[in-house]
């Protein structure tokens, strides 16, 4: 047969023998059980912050309900009282005007630490206190009751340990699921900005930060180039950063400082993004509005994620660079023929599908061969660069220029008819004629550049790419025959030729 103490312990054990989601849920079960068992008026649970000699109230349970509380209060100022509690595990309080008992809870919870980039897990000692009160009738606690309370406190401690282990497991599982989701999004996105936006939104959502920002730097980590951020409302902001001076240097120094570690109670953290020695940028997340401290688990999880993120950004940047190199001409920074052809077929398809205009312009620099022969290839290259600068600056965002070969350039003008193309041709002509070669190469003579241009339009002059190119080239040929430095539209040239033939 079980004695009364053992039987009570057995019953209490059975009551707590279930899976609790967190400490709160366990206490919501344990405190009312204690209340019923000892006919209490109130039961409290405190976390003991030994370093601050403070008890932090976490839960209060009265006859009617349990209330979640999170307030720091110092109920024990006297060291003698603390000593007694530590020594015996239980003590009656002298602080209150009615019978109350403090019982010590000691358990271990899983914790982790980041050492040399590796996560180390260990068990950390935790101390808590329960306070049981009888203020209504003022009935004192008997010796047997105190003995039983001490035994039950040990049972609660044991359950607290198990619950905290379960909770830590779940927490880690949640974090790894979140990071896995984020990595999948990132890995599947080759467009850097789209991927980053999704990542930052995801980090904010999963980790519940007030703001998350990504600073992208140059490869040396000396300049911040742009900031992508998600603010407290969930809105995405993007800004290119002008040189910030002293503040920028200080910030970068702080971020890339190798000794940066986690500090509790901090509401802002920076995590550098590096690939080997290359600095990619850094992640900044803050809770400065809500003042919530950033948890250690969140911090180290994001640190691990950051290296993956840095690698992805670096890869994507490389991809973009390769694409840029393969799509753009190194000298003139204009798209190359292959890229132009792709865009041209897309645009031509759109024009056919939606019945839109489209014009094509071929141009070359007048007497380019003579410039090369007379002043050298260096000046020839210079002329090409200057002309392409004007071309890039004169066009609309939808227009696509291209270096077709040698000094020949082609420009596709979507939603533009022949008349409108003439206006653009005129503007180009005007601006390019204003360019003169540097006089130190021309023995003081003023030598101006000029161009000749031929224009064809869809659908009047042709319905496929080859046809349109051919017609524009014929118009250019006519301009060249007529003395260069001008432009011509194929339709007009063809009409003139017809008339001449008829005559």
């Amino acid at each position: 047969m079980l004695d009364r103490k053992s039987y009570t312990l057995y019953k209490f054990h059975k009551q707590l023998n279930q899976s609790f989601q967190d400490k709160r849920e366990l206490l919501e079960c344990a405190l009312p059980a204690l209340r019923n068992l000892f006919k209490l008026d109130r039961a409290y649970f405190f976390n003991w912050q030994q370093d601050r000699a403070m008890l932090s109230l976490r839960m209060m349970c009265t006859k009617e309900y349990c209330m979640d509380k999170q307030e720091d209060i110092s109920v024990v100022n006297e060291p003698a009282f603390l000593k007694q509690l530590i020594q015996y595990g239980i003590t009656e309080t002298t602080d209150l005007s009615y019978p109350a008992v403090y019982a010590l809870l000691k358990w271990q919870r899983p914790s982790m630490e980041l050492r040399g980039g590796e996560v180390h897990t260990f068990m950390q000692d935790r101390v808590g206190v329960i306070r049981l009160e009888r203020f209504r009738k003022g009935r004192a606690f008997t010796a047997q009751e105190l003995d039983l309370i001490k035994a039950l406190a040990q049972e609660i401690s044991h359950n607290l340990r198990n619950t905290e282990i379960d909770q830590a497991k779940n927490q880690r599982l949640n974090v790894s699921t979140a990071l896995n989701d984020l990595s999948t999004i990132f890995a599947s996105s080759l467009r850097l900005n789209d991927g980053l936006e999704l990542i930052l939104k995801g980090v904010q959502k999963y980790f519940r930060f007030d703001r998350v920002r990504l600073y992208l730097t140059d490869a040396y980590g000396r300049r911040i180039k742009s900031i992508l951020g998600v603010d407290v409302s969930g809105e995405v902001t993007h800004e290119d950063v002008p040189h910030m001076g002293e503040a920028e240097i200080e910030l970068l120094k702080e971020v890339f400082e190798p000794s940066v570690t986690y500090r509790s109670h901090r509401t802002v953290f920076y995590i550098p993004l590096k690939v080997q020695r290359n600095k990619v940028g850094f992640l900044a997340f803050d809770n400065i509005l809500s003042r919530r401290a950033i948890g250690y688990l969140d911090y180290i999880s994001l640190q691990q994620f950051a290296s993956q993120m840095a690698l992805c950004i670096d890869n994507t940047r490389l991809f973009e660079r390769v694409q840029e190199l393969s799509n753009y001409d190194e000298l003139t920074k204009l798209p190359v023929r292959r890229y132009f052809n792709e865009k041209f077929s897309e645009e031509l398809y759109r024009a056919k599908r939606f019945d839109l205009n489209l014009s094509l312009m071929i141009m070359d620099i007048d007497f380019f061969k003579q410039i090369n022969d007379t002043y050298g290839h260096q000046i020839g290259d210079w002329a090409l660069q200057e002309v392409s600068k004007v071309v890039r600056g004169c066009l609309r965002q939808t227009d696509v220029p291209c270096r077709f070969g040698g000094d020949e350039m082609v420009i596709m003008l979507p939603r533009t008819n022949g008349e409108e193309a003439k206006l653009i041709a005129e503007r180009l002509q005007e601006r390019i004629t204003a360019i003169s070669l540097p006089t130190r190469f021309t023995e003081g003579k003023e030598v101006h550049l000029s161009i000749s241009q031929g224009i064809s339009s869809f659908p009047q002059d042709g319905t496929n790419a080859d046809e349109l190119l051919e017609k524009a080239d014929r118009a250019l040929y006519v301009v060249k025959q007529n003395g260069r430095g001008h432009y011509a539209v194929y339709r007009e040239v063809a009409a003139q030729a017809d008339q001449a033939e008829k005559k």
Partner: protein
Amino acid sequence: MILWVLPDAGDRSKEKYADFIARFKKENPSIDVSVRVFTRNILWRRMFTIKHPTYEEEIPDIIQIPHYWTALLVREGVAANLSELDPGLSLTNCLVPLKNHCYQPGTKDIYSYPWWFDVSALHYRPDHLKLVSSNPAKDLSTWNGLLKICAALREKFKDVPGYYPVQNSDWRGSLSMRHALPCVWGKGADLVSADFKNTSVGTRAFKEGLRAYINLALNDYMPILRERGSLGTMASGKASLILSRKQGSFNARRGVQIRTLPVPTTGTSSQAYLSGMNLFINTLSQEKKNALKFIKFCARPENQIAYASMIDAFPAFEDAFERVAFASPVRLQTYSNILASARTLPNITITGTIMEILKRILALCATQIVAGKFSASFLDKQLDGAAKEIQQLLSIYEG
């Protein structure tokens, strides 16, 4: 429908809410209402997480908040636009100081609806005071006067064990920003400038105001970091004064005579802190219609009066307020002066954060005082740091 509330009636909050919800249920038997009581600290944290609930977290429908959180919740996108839910919803009848805190700043869109308000005042036991002052109203009109009275009371009651001239109204026994604010205002300082571009937290006036309040604890006139239940109260004769939002009826019920005065000023005129409580509807709520019904129910005069009397506060709407005020000539006389000079906190995104920052500083000061390590330079250093932080917040979250 899930209602998240603050403990308006302390330990008895759940009972009070149960009574009030029963009234609502009588009219709306088909609507189930569950109440969750949170302390302000917890509710503040939850305001930043309810936007992205995890699968195991419940989604509240209505939430009670201090009036000055509205701008923040609108910015976060957590509060539903009540004007959109019910274009007929109006604040015409709402008391003037509470109106601005219901709108999204700069617009006339209502995002939170007023429920009740309270105002800080100084309550005293006339039987105790007459031992040290022939004219308490005059002697307690200034903060220095209060400190002198405290010194005299301390001397008078030196033989009463556990006696403190001032009872700490905070249940945790902490220093409270709500009571410190009138001292700061008295010195001409404030949390932020009128254009919301600068803070005066680091100024000399602010520091002097806060120090004046802290002097109560520093001189051992008011107990700190001790639980309310662990010490004597005014009712038990172990204190003579209390700075409290409550109207004193809690002690009157126990047969102790209590009189009320405006909070003593550190400047030339008293300025009381008026704090409103509002309700808002969560944007994620699936029961917005029912939630709106509850909000309108709370705004009805008879319900305003009923709930305010349950928790010893004032109704937020004119008709109900007037009925409460005129029902007691003594209350009317006492509170008309206090209310005339009452001030609220600004309804901008970062007000709640500023209060959190200052609350933490007061908590640090309290620990230092208890440990006998407090110094004015410690407080000044903390406030200088806070000022920088607030200035940065103002530059990030304008308005």
